[in-house]
């Protein structure tokens, strides 16, 4: 009796994306295993001015948040537009992927993705200038992310 219909099993918002952290210590298989059990989410496209409080409020809507780590510019040690959100349970993180991912925080569409787990050092941007890599190369003007990308403002 307990046949499950594949059509109803679809849960695509929870699927692991194509992104893999290149600095991950371990092989692809280990990384994928961690991603599939993770309670931690990477959150991207934040404004530099988005606060921990705002992230807490929004992400609490899918469950109790264990901790938030705001991403920092490696040089300036100021927020550089991403963060990690860790939940106590996987279920709560899944609901965030289903219902918070792709909605607005601080007027910006944010993006969430599974993360293998926070480790010291991962709170820093990996771009040459200290922020995120994406802000090195982008061409557009984004006032909430320091204006133009670094490649544009470099002489």
């Amino acid at each position: 009796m307990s046949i499950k219909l594949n059509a109803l099993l679809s849960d695509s918002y929870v699927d692991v994306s194509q992104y893999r952290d290149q600095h991950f210590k371990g092989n692809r298989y280990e990384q994928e295993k961690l991603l599939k059990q993770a309670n931690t989410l990477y959150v991207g496209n934040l404004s530099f001015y988005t606060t921990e409080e705002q992230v807490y409020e929004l992400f609490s809507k899918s469950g109790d948040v264990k901790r938030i780590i705001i991403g920092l510019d490696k040089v300036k040690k100021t927020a550089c537009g991403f963060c990690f959100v860790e939940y106590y349970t996987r279920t709560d993180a899944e609901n965030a992927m289903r219902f918070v991912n792709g909605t607005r925080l601080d007027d910006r569409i944010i993006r969430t993705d599974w993360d293998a787990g926070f480790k010291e050092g991962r709170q820093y941007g990996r771009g040459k200038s200290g922020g995120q890599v994406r802000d090195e190369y982008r061409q557009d003007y984004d006032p909430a992310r320091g204006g133009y990308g670094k490649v544009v403002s470099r002489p």
Partner: protein
Amino acid sequence: MSRRRHSDGDDGGQSHKRRRTSEPVEIEDRLESLICRVGEKSTSSLESNLEGLAGVLEADLPNYKNKILRILCAVARLLPEKLTVYTTLVGLLNARNYNFGGEFVEAMIRQLKETLKANLYTEALYLVRFLCDLVNCHVIAAPSMVAMFENFVSVTQEEDVPQVRSDWFVYAVLSSLPWVGKELYEKKDAEMDRLLNQIDGYLKRRLKTHVPMLQVWTAEKPHPQEEYLDCLFAQIQKLKKDRWQERHILRPYIAFDSVLCEALQHNLPPFTPPAHMPDCQYPMPRVIFRMFDYTDAPEGPVMPGSHSVERFVIEDNLHNIIKSHWKERKTCAAQLLSYPGKNKIPLNYHIVEVIFGELFQLPCPPHIDVMYTTLLIELCKLQPGSLPQVLAQATEMMYVRLDTMNTTCIDRLLNWFSHHLSNFQFRWSWDDWVDCLALDADKPKPKFVKEVLEKCMRLSYHQRIVDIVPPTFSALIPADPIFFYKYQDEANSALPGYAVAIAVGNAIKNRASNEEILTVLKDVPNPNQEDDDDEGEGFNPLKIEVFLQTLLHLAAKSFSHSFSALAKFHEILKALTDCDEGKLHILRVVYEVWRNHPQMVSVLVDKLIRTQIVDCAAVANWLFSPNMAHEFTRFYVWEILHSTIRKMNKHVQKIQKELEEAKDKLERQQHKKQKDSGDEEDMEKNSEDEDGQLEEQIERLQEKVESAQSEQKNLFLVIFQRFIMMLTEHLVRCETGSVDFSTPWYKNCIERLQQIFLMHHVTIHQYMGTLENLLFTAELDHHILAVYQQFCALQL
């Protein structure tokens, strides 16, 4: 054309297990996909798709009969929104293969028995409805269906069974009649009349104590919140009066009438409803949520009336679509908006009504609250020219009716509204609500606006809120979330403890050790002690104040800073708050300093519980204390209380799980021992040790569970006791003063009491005996006792 590989045929009748390829699995998956997707957007008509699929399945019956049976049973159970598509398919198969039709009916009956035994009452309902529609497809003979209905209705004659049991069987009959009423009446009208009379009698004598607790609005106007069985019966009676003419349901089998008429029908075997068992969990009663009627849709198709059967079918189908696709918001929105027959109804209004109906459902929404917010945003994206207007209209209507809306529902409304606004730059016609400014601040409308703005601020920042509302609304703007430091500057130097506060601040900044800081704190006089008393380690409120105010002041920058501070000085905080009074005082200090930042208070209290600096009962006592009486009706207070109760519940569950796991491990170990043989002496000694260790662990866990449950029970006792005290005091005071007791405060308080029952009903159920003996006794004021009685009437 056979899809079998040539080589499979070579083995004759032997088992193919050795040489099984992936093909059969692929074919089975393909069959499932074909069946599940029939009826979806296609270049061909539904009829020709069904015809084609029937042909394919008929050809596959020799090899894949069991799989096809299982898939069809599954779609009957799990895809009720496509009921008539699949009954038509079964009808076509039965016309081509009578035996298959018979086997399918048998499989369905088996499945019905299993779902009932497994407490899967919603699925069982869909199975019954499917069987009914098979009468329309000439698969099942009408008289045998009527006989099953007669057996269902006879449950109402059973004695000493929960009302929710007979409710389900009556609902199963009534809710199938929109599909099959006409056919059954044509064949067996006398029997059906008798059934409906029996049902009528049952509904009249049925208890409805539970209804007030489940209603979203207490007012009867503009739309009464009807009990679900009463509403459905009214709809069926109207349908009967209209001679069973029902035009909304999509009936593909009509197009195949000539083929289906030729088919031979099967008789349902006599079906005896399984007897009631103590562990049966029947569905809870419901109230039908209505917010729109035909006057609300300004143009276009008219909304079917509240007692029309179309309304029932539309709502049922929309609920089922959400149930099938809630995890995938884009698909869910698309499916809702492509509802068959949408051109004849104001679909956007139905969708919005059904979504809010679920969001406000008591005790709890069927799915997580945030899903509905995101689903509505998705719908707005797909229908930008029409849906946002309906949503705005709905919001305005709910604002107007706030006075009679259940407090729990107001909570959910303001959570939804503030989150929704944050996705649309907080754009709203606030001026439309200027009427709330003339009312007292404790009235529902201004209160609602204030709480909405506070929630909006949490998702943005203070200045943003100032900017988005007209200046006239300044009284409702939340406070600037600043920290209040008692020992801020020289002006406070006369305060006791001031000097130590400065010293402690410096010590912390200079990274002094815990011992050093404790030494500094020794200088704080204890206002509770005699001068000649030895410096005891007793409760010293001033010490707590000096330390915690200073610490939190230094860490005020962000949540992370404050959490780090609490973690770093955990030892000191534990030492200072060893007793109940200490715990209470710590919470008071947290409130003192952060009273303008309720969100910070919330997260700090959460951390204090999780790091065991305070316990759950302390938080409950604090929230109910006279110090917090002025905050009692604020939303954040209840967020904290419910979060605290949930933490307690999760804690108990966690230890219970550990205990179960340890018990399982022991069982497995002992089981393994029985099977093993070999070096017996050595093994016996080792395994005895292992067993002993596990048994000890189990005993410890057992104690832990009992202790946790005791703490949990105590928490609820504290909360209920406090409610009873507060409400009784209020009622007595009003009576002696000959004043109407029904103030906004009272409504809020009594509904908060209801909310405790509803939100934590699963846990509270375990402690009903204690609650009834100790607290909810007959001596209680009947207003308070009524809440308890309504809760019991839900038979949760």
